[in-house]
């Protein structure tokens, strides 16, 4: 640590100060017990969702700082702000963090906050597993971020191709951090996928047939199916590479019949579906937002459902477009090229249906709606360049160039991040009971949008100029300087936009418009029938659903009182008990990961033994639920004026 230079020292000091600060504040305000009882041991999906959200925003900050460092380094030719090693570490952590520790927890935040409320359920199917998933993600993220100050970050790119990542070229420990942290969070993600599929199939309110489900819930079905089918491929790829590194096997070296291309295939069999995992829920969010703010039923509901499911299926047949230039042959390339283009068909259908939902509606330009409108422009362009990339012979020219960088940022930021922000604004009142400030939010939106185009449009052009990705510096004679400089300005504008979101949140905590109705946007689906924030048991009485957009129909026909609880008929509610075990399991996984990173096998296996012990302890547990007494429900409902 001591020999890594001032940047790392400064970070060490900052991390230390922040930790001391947090501990100090918690101790001063005597908040330890509150933190433990209310948050660390919670199994309430709404709180887990909020923790996911906070973690995702923090990681967006970390990944964003990485991005700004990279863009600063590339602003002018022959720059020496960062060394090659440092730049390589930064693009690796940036990519990994943005995809696995920012986008994934952000979509899980939305799953958790919204799905049970939307389908009229009191909780997810496996609340305890849900907590485990969160803590696995959380401690994996911690492990990954620690690499920075403990032994060096990974530096072989977020795709981590062997043989560059084999021991011969990369002694570690950075690469080990990558393999273990991603593995641990991946296990958690598989749990979440299973959990939400089970929740949606098993816990819907009576009468909510599949074709009456809100579209966000449908998008979670589609994403969960993809998670369950794709993440095991990643788990296997990472495990085999770890075996190569730690135990000297030859799965991905060329010796003894090993084959690095096998890793590339396995990685993208997960990696391509992964981008749909993070975009499908965003599609769901846009469907909710567009319908609500157009005051109109969603156009072509069954097409919307069909296209979601079709996208999740096609997404498995396109992975080889990530290596058209690996010599698979013309027939293979043609197949994967056409399959990739086909994804554009259902996606295009969704865009038309959103537009026709607005058509003959009454559109309110709220913040979620602004993010949705700017998403459409971004996604049209990102989708268009995606189709261009799918043209295999053309991709021989785009592959690994800045054209590709511009394309995937346009879809990942302009699609996923815009969608998640739209969702955050939309459901924020449901989470916290107040709206985020519109004026500050508009500043953030405008800055972020302008910044986006200034940052990434020049990168398409840089691709045509032959600039490769992952270059820490470039010579002056290539004529790449001006466009790179413009791009960097754009990145800072986006950073400023993010800052406005932070300011907006802080400002709104104090001054944001309070939501006393529970239905601040005049919503259509069940979550808006509850007070904001929803009581911990969600529904005092489970509604019986008779049609799509049930809450809207009730409002139209003045029947909302039907969803109010009645004192005489209230029954006590069984809810799962809090548990410390998921948290402790996360801690144990953290130490197991840490042990294997540094080849301290004793620590690694001891920590895994603790994981096993915790699981056995759980298996022997009999009473994991308790009854919420009627009195408490009465009191809670009365306090929100619903009785």
């Amino acid at each position, binding site marked *: 640590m001591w020999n890594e230079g001032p940047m790392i020292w400064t970070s060490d000091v900052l991390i230390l100060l922040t930790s001391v600060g947090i501990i100090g504040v918690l101790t001063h305000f005597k908040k330890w017990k509150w933190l433990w009882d209310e948050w660390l041991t919670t199994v309430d999906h709404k709180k887990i969702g909020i923790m996911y959200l906070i973690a995702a925003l923090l990681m967006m900050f970390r990944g964003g700082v990485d991005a700004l460092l990279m863009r600063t380094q590339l602003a002018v030719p022959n720059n020496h702000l960062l060394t090659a090693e440092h730049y*390589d570490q930064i693009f690796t952590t940036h990519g990994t963090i943005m995809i696995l520790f920012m986008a994934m927890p952000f979509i899980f935040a939305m799953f958790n906050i919204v799905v049970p409320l939307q389908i009229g359920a009191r909780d997810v199917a496996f609340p305890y597993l849900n907590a485990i998933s969160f803590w696995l993600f959380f401690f994996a993220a911690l492990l990954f971020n620690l690499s920075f100050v403990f032994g060096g970050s990974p*530096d*072989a790119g977020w795709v981590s*191709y062997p043989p*560059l990542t084999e021991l011969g*070229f990369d002694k570690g420990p950075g690469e080990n951090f990558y393999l273990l942290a991603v593995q641990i969070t991946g296990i958690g993600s598989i749990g979440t996928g299973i959990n939400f599929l089970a929740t949606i199939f098993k816990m819907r309110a009576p009468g909510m047939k599949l074709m009456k489900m809100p579209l966000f819930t449908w998008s979670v079905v589609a994403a969960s199916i993809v998670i369950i089918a794709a993440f095991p491929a990643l788990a296997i790829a990472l495990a085999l590479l770890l075996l190569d590194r730690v135990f000297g096997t030859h799965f991905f070296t*060329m010796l003894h*019949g*090993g*084959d690095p291309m096998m890793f590339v295939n396995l990685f993208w069999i997960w990696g391509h579906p992964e981008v749909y995992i993070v975009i499908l829920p965003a599609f769901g969010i846009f469907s909710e937002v567009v319908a609500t703010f157009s*005051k*109109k*039923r*969603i*156009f*072509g509901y069954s*097409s919307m459902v069909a296209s979601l499911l079709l996208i999740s299926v096609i997404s498995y047949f396109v992975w080889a477009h990530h290596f058209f*230039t*690996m*010599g698979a042959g*013309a027939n293979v390339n*043609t197949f994967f*090229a*056409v399959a990739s*283009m086909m994804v*554009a*068909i259902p996606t*295009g*259908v969704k865009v*038309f249906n959103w537009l*026709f*939902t*607005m058509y*003959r*509606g009454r*559109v309110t*330009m709220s913040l979620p709606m602004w993010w949705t409108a700017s998403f459409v*422009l971004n996604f*049209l362009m990102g*989708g*268009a*360049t995606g*189709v*261009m990339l799918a*043209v*295999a*012979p053309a*991709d021989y*020219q785009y*592959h*690994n*160039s800045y054209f590709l960088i511009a394309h995937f940022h346009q879809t990942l930021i302009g699609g996923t991040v815009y969608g998640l922000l739209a969702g955050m604004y939309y459901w924020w009142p449901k989470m916290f009971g107040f709206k985020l400030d519109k004026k500050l939010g508009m500043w953030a939106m405008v800055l972020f949008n302008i910044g986006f185009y200034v940052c990434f449009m020049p990168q398409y*052009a840089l691709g*045509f*100029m*032959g600039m490769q990705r*992952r*270059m820490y510096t*470039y010579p002056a004679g*290539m004529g790449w300087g001006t466009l790179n400089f413009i791009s960097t300005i754009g990145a800072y504008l986006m950073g400023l936009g993010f800052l406005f979101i932070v300011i907006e949140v802080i400002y709104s905590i104090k001054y944001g418009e309070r939501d006393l109705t529970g239905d601040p946007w005049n919503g259509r689906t069940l979550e808006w029938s509850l007070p904001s924030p929803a009581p911990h048991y969600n529904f005092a009485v489970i509604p019986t659903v008779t049609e799509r957009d049930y809450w809207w129909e009730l409002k139209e026909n003045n029947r909302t009182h039907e969803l109010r609880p009645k004192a005489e008929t209230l029954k006590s509610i069984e809810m799962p008990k809090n548990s410390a075990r998921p948290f402790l399991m996360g801690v144990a996984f953290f130490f197991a990961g840490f042990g294997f990173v540094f080849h301290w096998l004793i620590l690694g296996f001891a920590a895994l033994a603790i994981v096993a012990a915790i699981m056995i302890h759980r298996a022997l547990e009999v009473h994991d639920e308790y009854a919420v007494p009627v009195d408490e429900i009465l009191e809670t409902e009365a306090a929100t004026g619903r009785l």
Partner: protein
Amino acid sequence: MQTPNQRRRRHSKSFLLALSAATAVLLTGCGSRFVVLHPAGPVGREELHLIELSAILVLAIITPVFLFMVYVLIRYRDKPGNKAPYQPKWSENRTMELIWWGIPIVIVAVLGGFTAKTTFALVHPPEKSVKPITIQVTSLDWKWLFQYPGQQVATVNYADIPTGVPVRFQLTANGPMNSFWVPQLGGQEYTMPGMSMGLWLQADKAGTYYGHGANFTGKGFAHMYFHVVAKSQTQFNQWVKKIKATSPRLTQSAYKQLTDPSVVGTKSYSGFPPNLYKDVVSKEGGKYMNHMMKAAGLNH
């Protein structure tokens, strides 16, 4: 106070300004620094045609869709006195949906057809009537070694080729995977340890073309560029003769030295160990993939 009309006029004015600015930026796209858009050979040209075709097709779709969104957002704004029709329950129209399932299917079919045609074409030499020349490329940490089995010369970080002659590059890696890319001549292909891949390129006119590794291989990757120098067949022959007369041979030990991680300038050699390329491929495990090597024409 501005009337809505004035405001609209101002908006459209700034829109026009933005549009012309964007066009100006795009027009500079004709500058010769945009190497992909200025191919110097048949392979790059074929790829450019596809780039143009796909760009036109997708632009034809996204432009009207975007304009339609702007129109809808303005026309159906929720403001008092808006007389546009409001039909909150209108949510199905079979015909319209069929149209927008149908149009992209047609476009994908067209584009897919052209894609298939070019993909298969690029496997073959761009020019059938001229006898091709073979160059064996090995990516090392962090330099490029070119061997000319026909001419018995070798170079590092630059490669001379004759114009108008199809060049068959055979590619492998001694080290991590890289990707061999000369944007102005045509697309790239990976170099992989233990495998030998093929890439056809050809230059029409004399010139010096920038090439670079495209797949990240570690610390020295950013400096891993090379030049392809195209010249007439006679000049090429003279160049070979000169190398043969003035440069040293590449010995095993000199090759060994090249494989050490380092960034070097250009070098020329008047010969190389006879089976060097094949040995590199099979040392790295090519022997486990004989079927692939056969396909690449390496195992006879």
